[in-house]
């Protein structure tokens, strides 16, 4: 409860709403003992006095009644009626919801069909029909508004009840011989009660507005008694000559409803855990670059070189250093593998190259991505956009969610081509069919008309690859493109990638967690752990003679076919959280060779031979 109030108080607008609503309720409660004149005393000599001119602070209405006094009494009445309607709707609606949810099957069916019928009406029609039957009057209006809101409660509460009736404690209560009534009262009710309260708090504003509306139409409170709605309705006749008589009650309704809405938003936000972690934020078109330290470009000779890249995630007060000074090079006609466990920063490295890391929370804080002499981290948006999908393209992990679900394959391919090349509709169609052929999709003319959900997983990934090839790229960055596929399809996709490097001379950066995949297609490999590269060199060398203890343990996790019965290794413990890395080697806590020096200082990536670099004080050197 205290935590909830703390959360609520973080939202200043909601707090303001809470203060206002408490003030209004307090004033309404003490209205009878306030020294104000009788709201119903008619004084026709003093009609339409403007505010602040007489004793009546807010002026007088068309019968010379004190507006201030009428406003306070009207507010009191409106609040009471709204609150009563909310209680009645909550009581009946929740009862129906609990019964429907608890007994389920037939009872549920009958009740919910009835509720659906009520919901088929635009709400005011039903309210009007009820008032027509019962006759105008505040109490009847209250009943009408309550009935109209019953379906809302019934549906919500039914859902919650349905969710808990299969819980073990309900079964236990049944087995112990408790009657249904007792189970509902002692077991179900306490669990759904919070939901009822929340539903009430979000609808009470509505109900105040709806009863005020019926009164405004002359169907609610009858003279001389007045709630805010009927005050407004009576003032309408004199709208043009004495507008303040309308403004006073109207503004009051606005204030009350707005305060309740603000408070309701605050309550909802405080209860929705997703909003707290900031997940519901939309990523910008490009990863944010902030506190940027441009690193020196280490190499100009390769097609693409990434130097000392730093990408962080700022979530709340935590700062996750997902990529911490990574340098890699992509060579023409070669495949570079980046391998590591989940959370090692391999995907973030790949996505940072073209500014595709979700931001917020991602921020690039340093590094240099060199492509043809310009730093991609610092190019303007237009230049980056003209390279994306054109010279440098991506293939992502989940082939289904990476494709737009509502567009056909053809449309998505054509779009990729047209984004960078001004070609005719006829040509763009031919090209997209050729692309589908080139990734060996059978019957491409037919498949082009399909939606992604109609294709198999392997076909989808082929479409993604075709899309990446649309503009003859120089570099393809593939982020675990085979992880979501089954093994045979995986092999086909890998051979497709191998062809692309060998035959088209493409540079491929291949992200994976599987050394088996590395051995099949990668020429070089960078092993990542906790945001840093721990070993980098020719893949054949590293596969056969891993120098870093982490690499050798990782290779030990790969099952080998036909190599006898070997205990499949695993690495004890978990990778460290990258928000609180201390000094020293991040792998030290899981390493068998740890010595005290490992924990003291940061360890540099050092060459152990001409081609291989290792970040370890005691690398296994094979001669």
């Amino acid at each position, binding site marked *: 409860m205290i935590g909830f109030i703390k959360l609520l108080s973080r939202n200043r607008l909601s707090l303001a709403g809470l203060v206002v609503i408490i003030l209004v309720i307090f004033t309404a409660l003490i209205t009878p003992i306030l020294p104000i004149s009788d709201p119903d005393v008619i004084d026709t000599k003093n009609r339409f006095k403007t505010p602040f001119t007489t004793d009546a602070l807010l002026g007088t209405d068309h019968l010379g009644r004190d507006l201030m006094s009428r406003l306070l009494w009207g507010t009191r009445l409106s609040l009471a009626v709204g609150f009563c309607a909310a209680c009645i709707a909550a009581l009946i609606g929740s009862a129906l919801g609990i019964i429907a949810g608890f007994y389920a099957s037939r009872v549920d069916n009958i009740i919910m069909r*009835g509720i*659906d*019928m*009520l919901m*088929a*009406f*635009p*709400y*005011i*029609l*039903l309210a*009007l*029909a*009820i008032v*027509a*039957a*019962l*006759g*105008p009057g505040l109490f009847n209006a209250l009943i009408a508004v309550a009935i109209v809101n019953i379906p809302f409660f019934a549906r919500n509460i039914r859902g919650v009840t349905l969710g808990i009736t299969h819980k073990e404690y309900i079964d236990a209560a049944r087995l112990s011989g408790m009657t249904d009534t007792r189970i509902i009262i002692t077991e179900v009710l306490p669990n759904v009660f919070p939901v009822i309260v929340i539903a009430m708090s979000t609808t009470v*504003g509505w109900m105040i507005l709806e009863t*005020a509306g019926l009164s*405004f*139409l002359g*169907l609610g409170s009858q003279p001389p008694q007045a709630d805010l709605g009927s005050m*407004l309705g009576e003032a*309408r006749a004199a*709208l*043009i000559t004495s*507008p303040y008589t*309308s*403004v006073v009650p*109207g503004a009051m*309704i*606005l204030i009350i409803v*707005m305060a309740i*809405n603000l408070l309701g*938003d605050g309550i909802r936000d405080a209860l929705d855990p997703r909003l707290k972690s900031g*997940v*519901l934020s*939309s*990523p910008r*078109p490009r990863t944010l670059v902030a506190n940027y330290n441009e690193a020196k470009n280490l190499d100009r000779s390769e097609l693409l070189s990434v130097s000392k890249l730093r990408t962080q995630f700022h979530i709340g007060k935590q700062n996750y250093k997902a990529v911490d000074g990574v340098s890699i090079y992509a060579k023409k006609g070669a495949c570079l593998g980046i391998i590591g466990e989940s959370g090692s920063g391999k995907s973030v490295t790949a996505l940072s190259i*073209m500014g595709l890391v*979700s931001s917020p929370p991602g921020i690039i804080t340093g590094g240099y991505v060199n492509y043809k002499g310009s730093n991609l981290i610092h190019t303007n948006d237009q230049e980056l956009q003209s*390279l994306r*999908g054109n010279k440098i*393209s*991506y293939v*992502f992990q989940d082939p289904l*969610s*990476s*494709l*737009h*679900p*509502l567009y056909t394959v053809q449309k998505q391919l054509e*779009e*990729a081509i047209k*984004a960078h090349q001004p070609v005719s509709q006829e040509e763009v169609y031919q090209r997209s069919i050729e692309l589908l052929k080139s990734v060996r999709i059978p019957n491409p003319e037919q498949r082009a008309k399909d939606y992604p*959900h109609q294709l198999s997983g392997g076909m989808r990934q082929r479409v*993604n690859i075709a899309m990446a090839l649309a503009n003859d790229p120089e570099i393809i960055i593939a982020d675990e493109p085979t992880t979501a596929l089954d093994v045979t399809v995986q092999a086909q996709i890998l051979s497709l990638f191998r062809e692309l490097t060998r035959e088209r001379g493409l540079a491929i950066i291949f992200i994976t967690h599987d050394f088996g995949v590395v051995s099949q297609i990668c020429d070089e490999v960078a092993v990542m752990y906790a945001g840093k590269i721990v070993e980098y060199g020719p893949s054949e060398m590293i596969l056969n003679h891993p120098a870093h203890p982490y690499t050798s343990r990782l290779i030990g996790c790969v099952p080998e076919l036909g190599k006898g019965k070997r205990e499949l290794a695993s690495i004890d413990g978990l990778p460290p959280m990258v928000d609180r890395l201390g000094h020293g080697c991040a792998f030290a806590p899981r390493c068998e060779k740890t010595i005290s020096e490992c924990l003291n200082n940061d360890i540099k990536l050092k060459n152990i031979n001409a081609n291989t670099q290792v970040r370890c004080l005691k690398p296994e050197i094979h001669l």
Partner: protein
Amino acid sequence: MLGYILKRLLSAIPVLLGISIIVFLIMAMIPGDPATAILGSYATPENVEKLNRDLGLDKPLFKRYFIWLGNILQGDFGRSYSLNKNVIDEVIERFGATLILAGTSFIMCSLIGICAGVLSSAKQFKLTDKLITFIVLLGISIPSFFLGMMMILLFAVHLRWFPVSGMWPIYGARDLTALISHLALPASALAVVATGVIARLSRSAMLEILRQDFIRTARAKGLDEKTVIWRHALRAAMVSILPILGIQAGFVLSGAVYIEMVFQWPGVGRMLVDAILKRDILLVQGGVVFVAACYVIFNIAVDVAQHLLDPRIKA
């Protein structure tokens, strides 16, 4: 597709029957004797009994329901005693005026609401977003009848841009320009609340979509941000925005009752309120059943549109 539409239309039959039963039962609850209400309190008992027999009120409830149902299926909703006119003629005429008002309003709130929601989500946490969020909050909190009165005061009385009330000028041609100038204020006043709700829900629907993988793919393809937001994201978000529009149509139709009172619009809402105050029960009954039935049909249209929009459902 045709099969689906047919299936949906068939499924509307029990809903429509349910609506007719609910309305009939509510009206049957009316205390007192309709015959006395029609004939006045000085009527002789013989006359009351005769009228009761003529109206079929001496028969049991369920028989009366089927007689009434049979009549309304043939378009006979009875005669309004206060207007001395066939109920169905009056309802259709008034409903036309309501459709013009609510329809315009609905188009306004859908367009503006979705645009505001999309802008707000694309510029999340920036000034545009905060501004839109605040205006939306104000919009959904203001009672439409109060807003309408204030608009009359400002735009009709002080600035004299638009007429104060009514649907047509009292003198002068009943042409489109006249209609638009009369329509501007009430349609805007009616649209405000729904615009706010639609903007709010469109924003969250868009935020949900914008963090999906296929948006990242669209960006990785090198599409410009306008295409990413307005084509890729909005197209996908429409799947969840469309049902919201259907629900909001009901709210616009409901809100029209207040706006018709404020602006003296000759719609079905004002007719119902007048009929209730005059105790013209047959008119109320006919109006409610007719409008509710139209709303059910409209919702089927929304379902069908949803179906067309999302190829995944077809399978």
